[in-house]
């Protein structure tokens, strides 16, 4: 388990480093057309390491730019969903009673809906291509499981002596939540947040695949896959490059998250 986790971490650090360093590794920017090399396969000679697309844009540059978008949205949207989920779950679990019942009922209802629909509806709210809006929309649907986990933890924490002591010494509820409850739920939250990141990356690339997400001249792994799928008969690399990047990213994040969770569930193994 440890070996897998280390491997996943190394892969992620390498990918992130590559994505960040990409502008210095290729002479081509992500949005410039190279008229001499349109739809040309990967080649060392022309310095198009991963080939070009139909318009002659460098696929390495575009793929790496797309990966920066994926990582940014993945991490930020996971953060948004962690914040909402922790606040919601801690409040529901701590206040309890009817408030708890109503808040969790709301979670149940939203849970029952196909969340892809909610993401699609929310994404129409913002001007197309606004990345900031995109991660708010994605993060806003990813918090449900987090809220459930945090609520469960809070329910048991609420009965502990240090909370009674805080109440007795006159600490107000928001301060108790922030200083005593939240730090104690941090560990499962971190493990789950790691698993949340690939989920968010999937949402983003899904929306971009459908044409609702990241817009030209910027690329997303989803939009690259969608373009590549149309050209795959004549130029398979246009599909395979972004598909391989997305696969590696998702597998690495999932292996990391699963190992973290397994470690937390049985710390002595």
């Amino acid at each position, binding site marked *: 388990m440890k070996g897998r986790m280390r491997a996943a971490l190394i892969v992620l650090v390498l990918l992130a480093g590559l994505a960040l360093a990409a502008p210095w590794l290729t002479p081509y920017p992500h949005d410039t057309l190279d008229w001499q090399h349109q739809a040309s396969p990967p080649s060392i000679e022309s310095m198009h390491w991963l080939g070009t697309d139909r318009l002659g844009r460098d696929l390495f540059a575009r793929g790496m730019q797309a990966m920066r978008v994926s990582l940014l949205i993945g991490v930020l949207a996971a953060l948004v969903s962690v914040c909402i989920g922790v606040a919601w779950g801690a409040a529901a679990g701590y206040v309890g009673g009817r408030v708890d019942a109503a808040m969790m009922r709301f979670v149940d209802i939203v849970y029952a809906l196909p969340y892809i629909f909610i993401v699609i*509806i929310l994404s129409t709210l913002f001007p197309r291509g606004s990345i900031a809006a995109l991660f708010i929309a994605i993060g806003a649907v990813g918090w449900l499981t987090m809220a459930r986990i945090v609520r469960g933890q809070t329910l048991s924490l609420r009965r502990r002596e240090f909370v009674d002591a805080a109440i007795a010494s006159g600490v107000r509820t928001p301060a108790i939540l922030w200083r005593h409850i939240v730090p104690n739920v941090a560990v499962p939250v971190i493990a789950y947040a790691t698993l949340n990141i690939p989920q968010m990356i999937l949402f983003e690339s899904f929306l971009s695949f459908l044409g609702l997400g990241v817009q030209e001249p910027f690329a997303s792994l989803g939009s690259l896959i969608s373009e590549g*799928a149309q050209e795959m008969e004549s130029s398979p690399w246009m599909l395979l490059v972004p*598909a391989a990047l997305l*696969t590696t990213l998702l597998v690495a994040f999932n292996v990391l998250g699963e190992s973290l969770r397994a470690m937390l569930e049985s710390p002595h193994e």
Partner: protein
Amino acid sequence: MLIYALRRIAGLVPTLFVLVTLSFFIIRLAPGGPFDQEQALPPAIRANLDAAYGLDQPLLTQYGRYLSDVVRGDLGPSFRFKDFRVTELIAAGLPVSLTIGFAAMLLALLAGVPLGAYAAWRADSWAARALMNFSLLGVVLPAYVVGPVLALVFGIYWPLFRVAGYEPGDASFLVLPVITLALPVIAYLAQLTRSSMQEVLQSNYIRTARAKGLSAPVLLFRHALRPALLPVVSYLGPAVAFVLTGSLVVETVFGLPGSGRYLVQGALNRDYTLVMGMIIVYGVFTLVCNLVADLLYGWLDPRVRPG
């Protein structure tokens, strides 16, 4: 049991109501409208259009009118597909979507459960390990990666199946979409079945049965399978939801004339009623499937049956 089932069915109504209300107001908040085009329409025509579709009324009036239509089973006129009711559009595409969805669920159950059971039974074999590593990939990869890659390999390099389009009655168009759609569910079902089967195989009554000298098939299928299937059954509801939303992608990838594409087109064109109609139809499907899975669970596991 019957009373419980009826109560659960009644519980669907408020959930549906929340779904309709939320999506109605959120989509109206979105900038732009169905009649915004490259060239602005003359104000008089625009006003006539708005009046014809009731868009000139206050939002709450529109909402009330829409609700009363929906209750009567009418999803309203499409704003972009002139002369079509939303009900007609969805009804035309639904058979295709349901065919691939149903076939994918069937394939997933027939493949995923036995594979998982095998992996639990022979946990140390290399085949079981390979299977489980492969299932990680299957769970993680989305349909828009699997679909095009399958189409490239089995449609172009090795032309076994058709990769795009659809002719009624010709199954070769449906093979790749169904496999694409089923793959993640197969992988997840295999993982679920394996872990619950492993737990069951370690329990006391299985040891007793084994000590009694029962043969492996009897042990596996008569004694171990039913309790091991519980998590599988509770996953069926979410699985159906997954397959429904997945069919959206698969229909786009393989150019199938299903109803899934209307959701995206509708969202892009601000075709309010079309988006709403899709959400209602697919939402009802999801909720009903979740409910059926819950009831099935109660039938399989007497402990959760309400007294």
